């Protein structure tokens, strides 16, 4: 199963260009969509889940066209939007039951089993009778993921799922997703938190200002940043200059001044040490690069 995105653009009525000629393929497994706020991630996702029409371009999922075959595509979709907080007056299990029923599970008993199974999986079984509105933020997210997955969708789109979650919830969430990614499904995970992707995604795309900045494996992205990540020890005066000139990834205070990790050509500094880049360095590097280009 593969998603093909071809020349995809989205311009809002106010003239804002949310997506600018995006071309990419997304295969099975976990696919990360990285980018800062306003990069166009949510727009792309909303187009993918048929909530919004692109201004130009096309998207196909295997032989199905997003424009022409919404019925087929919606039937294999699972979607968790960025905001998932307000519910009608339904209990936790009822909301899940509603989602299950809409995903096409007609048998009441099968639905009941599925609902229980997913409530158990996401750790909400004990609060199944509680009003969905009265769940904590983390619980609501878990309920969100459960409703996304309950119909066994082939394409799962989750938008900024870990925002506002505590570390424990985030780990739990990641685990659920990585477990799923072992199956023959496409999971598209959008985030601006690099850590969410680094551990579980085998492919990613980087969006910045509506453009595709990078597409490939996390390793390839890291490789691109090699030679551009430096650690410099510096005093106070120099630190201000560095901050102006370079993208600073981290700053650790030392006895002499600061130990600064920066992106760019740091070899000119006398005590500079080239660092092994990680995904976060690569992300910052690319953001800097594409901003410079724009």
């Amino acid at each position: 199963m593969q998603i093909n995105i071809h020349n995809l653009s989205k311009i809002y009525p106010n003239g804002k260009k949310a997506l600018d000629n995006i071309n990419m393929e997304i295969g099975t497994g976990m696919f990360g969509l990285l980018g800062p706020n306003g990069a166009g991630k949510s727009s792309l996702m909303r187009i993918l889940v048929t909530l919004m029409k692109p201004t130009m371009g096309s998207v196909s999922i295997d032989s199905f066209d997003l424009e022409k075959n919404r019925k087929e595509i919606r039937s294999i979709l699972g979607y968790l939007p960025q905001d998932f907080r307000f519910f009608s007056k339904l209990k936790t299990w009822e909301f899940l039951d509603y989602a299950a029923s809409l995903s096409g599970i007609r048998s009441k008993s099968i639905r009941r089993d599925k609902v229980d199974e997913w409530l158990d999986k996401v750790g909400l079984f004990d609060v199944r009778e509680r009003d969905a509105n009265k769940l904590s933020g983390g619980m609501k997210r878990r309920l969100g993921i459960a409703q996304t997955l309950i119909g066994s969708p082939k394409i799962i789109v989750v938008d900024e799922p870990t925002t506002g979650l505590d570390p424990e919830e985030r780990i739990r969430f990641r685990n659920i997703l990585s477990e799923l990614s072992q199956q023959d499904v496409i999971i598209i995970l959008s985030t601006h938190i690099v850590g969410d992707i680094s551990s579980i995604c085998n492919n990613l795309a980087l969006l910045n200002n509506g453009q595709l900045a990078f597409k490939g494996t996390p390793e390839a992205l890291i490789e691109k940043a090699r030679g551009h990540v430096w650690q410099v020890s510096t005093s106070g005066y120099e630190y201000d200059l560095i901050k102006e000139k370079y993208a600073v990834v981290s700053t650790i205070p030392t006895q002499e001044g600061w130990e600064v990790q920066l992106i760019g050509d740091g070899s000119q500094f006398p005590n500079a040490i080239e660092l092994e880049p990680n995904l976060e360095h690569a992300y910052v590097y690319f953001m800097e690069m594409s901003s410079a280009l724009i």
Partner: protein
Amino acid sequence: MISIHTIRTVAKFETRTLLRSWFFRIFAGFSILFIGIFNVTAFVENSGAPWIYRALPAAIPYANLILLNLGQAIVAVFLASEFLKQDSKNDTIEVIYARSMTNSEYILGKTIGIIGVFVILNFIILLMGIGFSFLSNDSSQSAWVVFYYPLLISIPTLIYILGLAFFLMILLKNQAITFIILLGYIALSIFYLNTKFYHLFDYIAYQVPMMNSTIGGFGNLREVAIHRGIYFFLGIGFILFTISKLNRLPQSKKLVSLPIYLAVISFLIGGILAKTYIDINIDKQEFRNEIIALNNKYVSFPKPEVTSCNIDLTHTGEEIAVKVKLEICNNSGSNLDTLLFSLNPNLTVNSVLQNGRNVDFIRQTHLLKIIPGKPILKKDSSKLDIIYTGSIDERTHFLDLNPELTEDNFTAEMFRIRKRFSYLQDNFVCLTSDALWYPISGVGYSSSNPALHSPDFTNYTLKVQTSKNLIPVSQGESTKIEDGVFEFQPEYALPKISLLIGDYRKHSIKVDSVEYSIYSISGNEFYLKHFDVIQDSLPSLIRELKNEYETQIDLEYPFKRFALAEVPIQFALDKHIWSISSDAVQPEIIFYPEKGVVMKETDFKKRKNRFEKRMKRDNEEVSDEELQARMFKRFVRGNFMPPPNEWYQFDNVDKNTYSPFPNYYGFSTQMYSQEYPALNIALGVYLQEKNSNSSSQNRWRFDGISKEERINLELKKASLTEITKTGLKKSKDDDEQIYLNDIFRAKGIHLFSLFKAKYGEDNFNSLLKDYIEENRHRKFSFSNFDSLLLAHNGESVQTDVKNWYTTNKLPGFLIKDLETYKVKEGDHIKYQIRYKISNPESVDGIVSVSIELNDRNRRRNRRNPGENKPAFTKSIFIPANSAQEVGFVFPSQPGRMNVSTHISENLPNSLVYDFNSFDKTKKGSFFNDIKDCEPFDGILASNEFVVDNEDKGFEYVQVSNKSYLKQWIDDKRVTEHEYSRLRTWNPPNEWKNVLRSGFFGKYVKSAFFTKSGQGDRSASWTAELKNSAQYDVYCHIEKVEHWGRRRGRQQKKTDYNFKVYHESGVEEINKNDQELENGWNYLGTFFINPENARVELTNKSIGAFLFADAIKWVENK
């Protein structure tokens, strides 16, 4: 393809959500509580709830749903707009929107979900109604029929208002604006639109007649279904339109336009239904007009007289097959080459035979023109056989009623009930002569001679064949030939016959050779148990009541049977313009509405309880038999022989609706006059009311103008001939509406009362009685009647009758020199009242004087005010341009005199004189007589000048404190009459003309009335005096008691602030209540020139209200 599963899923969760909404829960809770209390109240004995609620099984369920519908129509708007608002606010909705379902499935699911919740509520309320209704032993119908109500009332309303709310919400994208617009629309349709255009805009169905009868069903199910269909389809259209506009990408490109197409189709169906609905109503009128036009064309066409009519009728389902044998006689005065009959247009004539031979005939709408083999010569007779089949078109009924003044449905309590005139159903038939179910010679109502109605007195026989389980009811002696086959043979010639067929149960008793029967539909004999112990005393009770009635009217019942027969509640109780009773009164039979629901005193259970309570209170011990006898009498008196001031609960029923009187005059004899057709009703009314005390002294004291006075105003504007031709205008206020037969009634009584006064009461009445007896079972002509009067009294009444018909002049009465004093006769003191009464107009007049004695021990009988008869009454005939001096003497002190001026220029037409004291004692003889005196046309002396508020010298400054909206609304309101109601508890913020006997006026005793204030309103009187001289100035004051609770200013009594203009300036004069007395009050003496003869009054007063009446200048010579 639409997925039912998805729709059900969305609906199920929407329902669940809604059921948990507090808004809905509170609404539902209150609805159930409120309607529950209402239901309990309707069924609890002694709650005072009208009988109709318990009597008709459909009543409570219908009432429940109408009440609920009113609420849910508003609540649904809120919920519907809320649902779309939530959708736009609720982020979880994207999760749902991303699911595989079509927009149609989603919106339909949502709609069904919302409607489902309301349906549940409706069923709870309906079942509650059914429960209460069928708990009562008085109900007698299967419950299933009431399940129509949610389908007809709630579902279309909900679908329409939900659709409209969705539509507006999608269009306006703002819940608050949507809500405000819809609430405005709802208010507009409830308070204004729902009565317009045949109730087309009544989406709540509050005005749509849907009462179900146990006998006749809904009566108009097709029309109601069309009406409700309009809203159902419009609602569906709006919902479909909402689907196409939903802010979600459609599932499939192919079907994206389908909802729009379907919406357009739904709107079209709605539109077509609306057009059909209007067309039905317009066609009804157009068809009636067509019939009337034909009647106009043939109204003077010579017609044969039907002397005998033998009807053989077979009833099969919704049709009748009839063979009629007619014997006709040509009394028309010319040879007849065409025999003209009226027959219902839905009846197809198969063949016509004259003396056994086929003859040609032409059908034209309701006309049947038979072309005889050869012309029927004058005075010749012939026999006709007419064979026809078909159904009945109800539009032939009541052609004489002005459609602007008559509605096609009526209200009883909170129920709208469709008027039905005839029935031809499988299990029930009701046919009156208006249905033209048998051929009637000539044509009926013609607008060119509206009052003309003179049916032939015909010897009828009727044979009816119907289903074996049904019983027919008609005039004459009934013979059962076999099951389902009956023959009726009336003993006498009748002007019309009627036919009822139904599952009747008959109970009868013969008293003094008259058979009294009641025919009730099986299951509706609720009354039996209430009269189970008076079987033996029934004959004497009936005899007593009959004697009581016949003593009153001084005529004897001319038929051999008298029956009450049950008809559906929908049966129309309209009155023809030539009749004062309704069409429920047929020869020998009175049709009573289902279980007597709109009659008086049919809630026997309640009546019994009340009697028992009263007996307990009065420590009275009464046997069951006596109790039932009292109930029986109350029932008979209330409905068939009511006192003049009996009160009626329902608008369409009055004291004559079920009056048996037409049997005494009308069905047994009639007066016929082509020239003055209204004479027949005039004579009838006179015969009926000649002995009753129809004084208007008990009239509602706050009425601006009484019915009789409104009639007088009409008669002042136009003659009887003109009014008959042009008809009467629709009054803004239904209560004030007067009809043509009201005018005939008033004029009729007046004419014959004048004859009575002219020729002597006993002489005239006995002459009349004998003549009527002589002409029993046939009609007589006015010329014969006139010859009789000529022979007995030496003068013809032709001129009087002509004047009566053509003049718009009215008599007018002036009273002066009223004296009250005591006269000593030996040891006894007697009380003398004397005065002069003049009629200076050119038309004869009559007044009725009634005097109440000031008997302090006499307790006013609140319960039966009608029995509180005045001590003395007398009618005085005052010919044109003449006057009478009148004197009455009483052994005890009279308290009040009431002079009813009947048809006259006088307003109010009842002059009331309260006698506080008979201080003076005069010696000499009594004057207890009526004698001629010098006529006078004014009551002022030659040196007296009066400016009344009706005169041109009177002016007022109208500064209104009304809000712009109220002013605008009031401007739109056309005031039918210039006189307002005198509401002392709510005086107007402007000058309003009001009537009261105590005010000054030549004929019109009126004054301007206003709320008191700070002098912002004023009135002035300017006299055209001839001389500059010393004048005594008087104001005319009538002290009117404040009615209602007194607060603040209302506690104080009115004082008056006058400004009297005179030669040397202005004098301000304040007169307080103590200084003032009723009548003329002296303000002062001034030297006044003609140019400054003026008096002003401001509304500054310490009282709550004041009046501007009249000012008098008396020249000192």
